[in-house]
């Protein structure tokens, strides 16, 4: 068995040196992970396990911080910090607010 993330030694192609600008939401994901870990509400290894078990297809489709937020969210629900219901309602609410003309 070999995790999809466990890539050391695989024959992959040229290294893409393009650099994207970090968006605020990405930095916030990173910040939340650090803050939550400092408060003992998640460990870096929980974050990593969540990413490692996304499955190759999802892993490939998602960007780096999309994988992070998917994993952090899962860990928080797993630990009962937030519920699936709360999350679903709030995501819908945020989505509606984002559509409103500003």
């Amino acid at each position, binding site marked *: *068995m*070999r*995790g999809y993330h*466990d890539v*050391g*030694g695989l024959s992959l192609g040229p290294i893409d040196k393009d650099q994207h600008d970090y968006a605020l939401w990405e930095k916030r994901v990173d910040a939340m992970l650090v803050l939550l870990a400092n408060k003992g509400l998640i*460990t*870096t*290894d*929980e974050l*990593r*396990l969540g990413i*490692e078990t996304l499955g190759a297809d999802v892993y490939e489709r998602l960007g780096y911080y999309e994988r992070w937020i998917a994993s952090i969210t899962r*860990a928080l629900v*797993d*630990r009962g910090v937030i519920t699936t219901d709360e999350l679903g309602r709030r995501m819908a609410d945020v989505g509606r607010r984002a559509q409103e003309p500003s």
Partner: protein
Amino acid sequence: MTPRFKPGDAVTVRRAYPPGHIRTPHYIRGKSGVVERICGSFANPEELAYGRNGLPAQPLYRVRFTQGQVWPDYTGTAGDSLDIEIYEHWIEPASGATDAR
């Protein structure tokens, strides 16, 4: 935990391929190298990944491998090496004797 190994010891990485959160890369399993330093003792990430505390902390080693022994087709210089941090439960003495466990 008292470290089982010390710098200079020849060790072999266990050939085991469990699922779960493992910090011993696939490519190094079954390979032999030399302990370069003891890094200290740390909680086991395999357990931390599931929200457990990973205690007792166990020794973590940096093990140095010769590239030519890790990759059969390595084309760099003979002295090129690869240093990896490996937890104690993943290494055994590289005595050549069969591991009874």
